[in-house]
């Protein structure tokens, strides 16, 4: 019975999350504007599922991830992890949650200390809770983790620069797995890798999810990768979610004009499909975060835009089961 309850309740629920960065100028650091990196987004992730967050650079997807792991303290909004709001907890209160929510970075080279060996990188994470452990215990855990991510435990003496890109990303994953987390925020984990290696890492992510019943928040700009790995997907534009739905729905029937354009811009490596596809090329560029256009943030680039779109910001509303869109014309 207990199990059923846990399954129904989302593991992570984000409500109206906002993250503003102040812009200051002058001697007295007077604030004159806000960069509204994340401007009121809500979504939830069930245990064992993957939520994909896609959007172009600067749309706020990484900032959202950073708020959830509490690198940033959100301006307003709630982040419920297993029913407990962690958005406003202090550092000390956060400690028990830190081990449960882990982060994997985009650049495996930049996120590993170049002077630390593989073993000491993992050891640091193992001993971070300051519980007494024997050397043998640490060694065993290290070997176990290395085998989990399909690395040779004999690589313990290597430095990050002696490893290939794929191996480094595996090491990053091993480090995130050290304290058996429930939720992993993956921030562009495969975008720096070559195609053939990328597929290996994606498969590893799926395999680990099955094995440890992990929940992922998967942030990426590659729509094909996100579709492959996610159950539900949120499309972001200028700090707002414009469409949230299941992966297959999103790709078969995109509703928001931005989603449509985004999907059509991705070339598909299949000759006959590609010959037939229609491409929507968006005009113009993403507006700046400081001067967000009034009304729908997408209206200057949208070809269906009407007078309403220029004045009123569309709210994210449910259009059917498990599907919400922020557009006046849907």
């Amino acid at each position, binding site marked *: 019975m207990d199990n059923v309850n846990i399954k129904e309740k989302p593991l992570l629920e984000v409500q109206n999350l906002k993250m503003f960065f102040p812009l200051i100028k002058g001697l007295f650091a007077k604030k004159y504007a806000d960069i509204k990196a994340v401007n009121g987004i809500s979504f939830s992730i069930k245990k064992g599922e993957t939520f994909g967050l896609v959007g*172009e*650079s600067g749309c706020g997807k990484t900032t959202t991830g950073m708020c959830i792991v509490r690198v940033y303290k959100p301006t307003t909004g709630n982040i419920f992890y297993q029913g407990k709001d962690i958005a406003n907890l202090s550092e000390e209160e956060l400690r028990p949650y830190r081990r449960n929510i882990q982060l994997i970075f985009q650049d495996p080279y930049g996120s590993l200390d170049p002077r630390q060996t593989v073993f000491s990188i993992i050891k640091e994470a193992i001993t971070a809770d300051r519980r007494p452990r024997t050397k043998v215990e640490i060694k065993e855990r290290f070997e176990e983790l290395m085998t989990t991510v399909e690395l040779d435990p004999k690589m313990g003496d290597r430095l990050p620069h002696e490893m*290939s890109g*794929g*191996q480094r990303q595996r090491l990053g994953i091993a480090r995130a797995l050290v304290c058996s987390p429930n939720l992993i925020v993956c921030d562009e984990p495969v975008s720096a890798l*070559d*195609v*053939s*290696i*990328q*597929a*290996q890492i*994606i*498969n590893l992510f*799926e395999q680990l999810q099955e094995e440890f019943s992990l929940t992922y928040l998967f942030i990426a*700009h*590659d*729509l*094909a*990768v996100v*579709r*492959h*790995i*996610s159950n539900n997907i949120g499309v972001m534009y200028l700090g707002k979610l414009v469409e949230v739905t299941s*992966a*297959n729905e999103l*790709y078969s029937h995109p509703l928001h004009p931005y989603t449509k*354009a*985004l*999907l*059509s*811009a*991705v*070339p*598909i*490596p*299949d*000759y*006959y*499909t*590609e010959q037939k596809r229609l*491409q929507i*090329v*968006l005009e113009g*560029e993403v507006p700046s975060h400081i001067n967000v256009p009034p009304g729908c943030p997408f209206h200057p680039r949208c070809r269906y835009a009407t007078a309403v779109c220029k004045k009123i910001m569309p709210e994210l509303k449910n259009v059917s089961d498990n599907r919400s869109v922020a557009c006046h014309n849907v």
Partner: protein
Amino acid sequence: MIEIEKKAAESARLLDVKHLRTSFFTNDGEVKAVDDISYYINKQEVIALVGESGCGKSVSQLSVMQLIQEPPGKIIGGEIILNGQNLLEYSPKSKEIRKIRGAKISMIFQEPMTSLNPVYTIGSQLSEVIRVHMRVGKKEAWGRGIKTLESVGISDVDKRMKNFPFELSGGMRQRVMIATSVACHSDLIIADELTTALDVTTQAQVMDLLLSVVKELGTALLVVTHNLGLVTRYAERIYVMYAGKIIESGTTEDILTCPMHPYTIGLLKSIPRLDVEQAKKLDPIAGDPPNLIDLPPRCTFLPRCQYAHEECRLKPFPDLRCVGQSQHCVACHLDLRSIKNG
């Protein structure tokens, strides 16, 4: 008859690269970054060079432009024939090469921020190219610069000419790079990972722009990329590179619908597809690309190949041989058609 056809083919040739070899001599040994590759591009053609990082695709293009830093790099053999003239007869710093580089062949790099000079305005950099290669005065060059910028879809051109690179967005900078490359009406544009640093929607914008400009001016385009999807949409022919060698070549249709090299097959299988339901597991190529120092004289893909055969271990590196249609060539000992069919 065959003679006439051959001659016609030759007159359509713009660039013919034959057995090009470029190595870097490091403390650890000789890195054969480009090892005996041959390819050609006809006038007004759009072709693509595909491969993963470190396969030598960029080095091969830098060799064509003679921009390899020496030492440690050196072009050790081959011919680069542009319009019937072998470019390797001239030294990289000679006047002749300078006249060709930027005027006859121009190159667009991946990172526009590092290839544009941060302390000069867009206008001065753009008109410098025109001044040097077209031998016109400052005013004339500035005027032509404005026209070129307009042709790549930049609005408010007078103001943009006075902007510095950091004042522009990524897509805008890439447009400026396109403008500098088309300003002198060169015969060939080499676009090296042009859109890798851009978002998908901007990528579509920039690629469409480049294609339309190229079509209008009748320039040939060589796209260097790792993105097979991009190639599918835009290229007429494809060369696939692996570990410094071309391992498969053919028309886009041939390569994508009927790949013959195990690497190309693996590459296509390992890409997550937008139009396929997610249930299918990806089929990655096992292992990592080889280190280019001291490669054994065998097939370089052998350690990762799922079809590897005893004869692959014994024989030297397979030559490119044509299969089926005359255009489709593959460097593999095995005939995968027979394996695939049974």
